[in-house]
């Protein structure tokens, strides 16, 4: 997360040099690259000369876990000394290499939450210490719908450095001062891009916006502004009939950020941690008194959709969905946010 600089510069990076580049950066940064394991591509910590896979469509797990890990210690308690030991928040400088435009957009959405009023140091420390090197999509997957949500799959100015795949090499766009500095410091890897390459990259970038199989029109989301109408819509009952109440959609969602805080106790030490939680679980809102404001699947599935499409919009100004398609790809019963939006609008 860095300050934007209007003066962007274009460079070229040969694919054959990427590993060398990562090996050089490795000395200074903790680098996360897409790695394929057991048929799944995920961001993994890069070790010298590790293999990685830049031909992925999108990672199975969203990169939110690099900022809001599934579990994270907040502090430990030493009972004998009666003292709290704050978790060391210092992280080495980090790079996420190859983040897709939808996922980088999800981080700017999460920033809104974690910066509001009390700043969440655990999230922001990691966020501020991380350079994003984005990678454009030229080949949307069948379940992608980022273009419905004002994410440009071909171009991403929110990352520090953005790569456009030109076949043998990448066109490198430096969006921020930090990004420019990184390129300036490593002239061996980056050469100046010519007009021809820039033009070709622009073509590729604009082509990326075509070929989506699913999606919705922007005006279709306007209906969610009227909570009163949408709240009692029969579709929630219908969805609840087949929803299994599992946490796949929320855990794989790149913008879902709800968490739980709990303590763990062992002899003379205690530990407080936070971990992902899901609004789809009964226990999420179940109070000690036994009262649960959202006791059934209907209320819980409605909460997930309305939180993203209505409540979040009126609080933070944007829809909390980036169209990465992970929920659509992985939902066991094929509950599809694009279909829900469509169905509510066109009945």
């Amino acid at each position: 997360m860095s300050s934007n600089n209007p003066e962007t510069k274009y460079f070229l990076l040969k694919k054959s040099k990427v590993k060398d580049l990562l090996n050089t950066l490795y000395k200074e940064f903790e680098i996360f690259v897409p790695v394929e394991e057991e048929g799944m591509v995920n961001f993994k910590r890069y070790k010298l000369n590790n293999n990685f896979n830049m031909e992925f469509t999108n990672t199975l797990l969203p990169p939110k876990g690099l900022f809001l890990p599934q579990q994270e210690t907040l502090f430990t308690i030493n009972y004998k000394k009666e003292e709290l030991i704050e978790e060391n928040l210092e992280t080495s400088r980090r790079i996420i290499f190859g983040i897709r435009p939808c996922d980088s957009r999800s981080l700017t959405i999460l920033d809104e939450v974690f910066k509001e009023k009390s700043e969440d140091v655990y999230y922001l420390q990691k966020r501020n210490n991380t350079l994003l090197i984005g990678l454009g999509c030229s080949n949307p997957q069948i379940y992608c719908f980022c273009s419905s949500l004002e994410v440009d799959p071909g171009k991403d100015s929110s990352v520090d450095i953005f790569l456009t795949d030109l076949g043998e090499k990448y066109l490198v766009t430096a969006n921020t001062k930090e990004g420019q500095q990184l390129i300036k410091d490593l002239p061996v890897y980056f050469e100046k891009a010519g007009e021809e390459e820039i033009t070709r990259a622009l073509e590729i970038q604009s082509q990326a916006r075509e070929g989506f199989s699913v999606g919705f029109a922007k005006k279709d989301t306007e209906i969610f502004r009227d909570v009163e109408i949408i709240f009692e819509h029969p579709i929630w009952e219908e969805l609840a009939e087949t929803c299994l109440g599992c946490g796949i959609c929320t855990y794989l969602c790149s913008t879902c950020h709800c968490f739980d805080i709990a303590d763990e106790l062992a002899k003379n030490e205690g530990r407080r941690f936070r971990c992902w939680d899901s609004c789809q679980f009964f226990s999420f809102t179940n109070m000690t008194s036994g009262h649960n404001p959202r006791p059934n699947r209907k209320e819980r599935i409605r909460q997930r959709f309305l939180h993203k499409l209505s409540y979040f919009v009126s609080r933070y100004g944007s829809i909390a969905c980036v169209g990465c398609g992970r929920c659509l790809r992985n939902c066991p019963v094929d509950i599809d946010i694009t279909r829900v939006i469509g169905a509510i609008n066109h009945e």
Partner: protein
Amino acid sequence: MNNLNQIQNPYLPRIASIEKITQETGDIKTFRLVFLEGDFHHLPGQFVELSVFGRGEAPISISSFIPGENSLELSVKKMGKVTSYLHSMCEGDKVGLRGPYGNTFPVERIKGQNLLFIGGGIGLAPLRSLIHYSFLKRDDFGKISIIYGARTPADLVFKEELFNIWSNIKNTEVHITVDVATNGWQGKVGVVPKILKELNPSPDNTVAFTCGPPIMIKYSLEALNDLNFPEEDTVTTLEMKMKCGIGKCGRCNIGNKYICLDGPVFTLKELKNLPKEY
């Protein structure tokens, strides 16, 4: 990449010591807590996240208003894991506190008005902070009426204040009722909304505050409506499962509000604009 060391970690509790424990009823105790270091400022209606280390954290509304002493009182019913352990703790034991969190009762707006408090059971706890506040600034307010009820006489909380202190303050009325009279109870018998209707308070220049079990709140709000109290002058507090207290964990989200940031105090008018999920 600026350094964040300056930002305070909002998840770190401050240590407080239990100074005094008062057994209110069979399962409710009031804990007077004193911070070991630093100041503590809050306004009536706010809550804190109370840590019993190794057991967890629970949001508890502050039931006192004691300015300038870095201390506060929490009246806690033994319910879950955290509150059960808290109940087993002794004076001198240490707990953690984060906060104060949440909005406050509209203390500025209600200046010069009459105050009507309607409490049931442990629901008197959050109202008590405003009662303390209004007695401290007694001349800022008109008549103060307190209607309080519990299931049986044994379930009444803050008995000393209810019977011996508050009613002796000028221009103040205290009405105490129980659902079931036991142990030679001489006072009123009947549920709070019924007593409220009998007392028939005037809505003129009066703000009503209600807190208690959901069923009591429901019927009290109806009664207040029948008595022509305007929706913006009817104030209540919402309860919702909370974890972080600072609008991050998403648990207490109702509509576009987080109860921990935008609540827990709502007027009836604001409440009607929220989805019915509380």
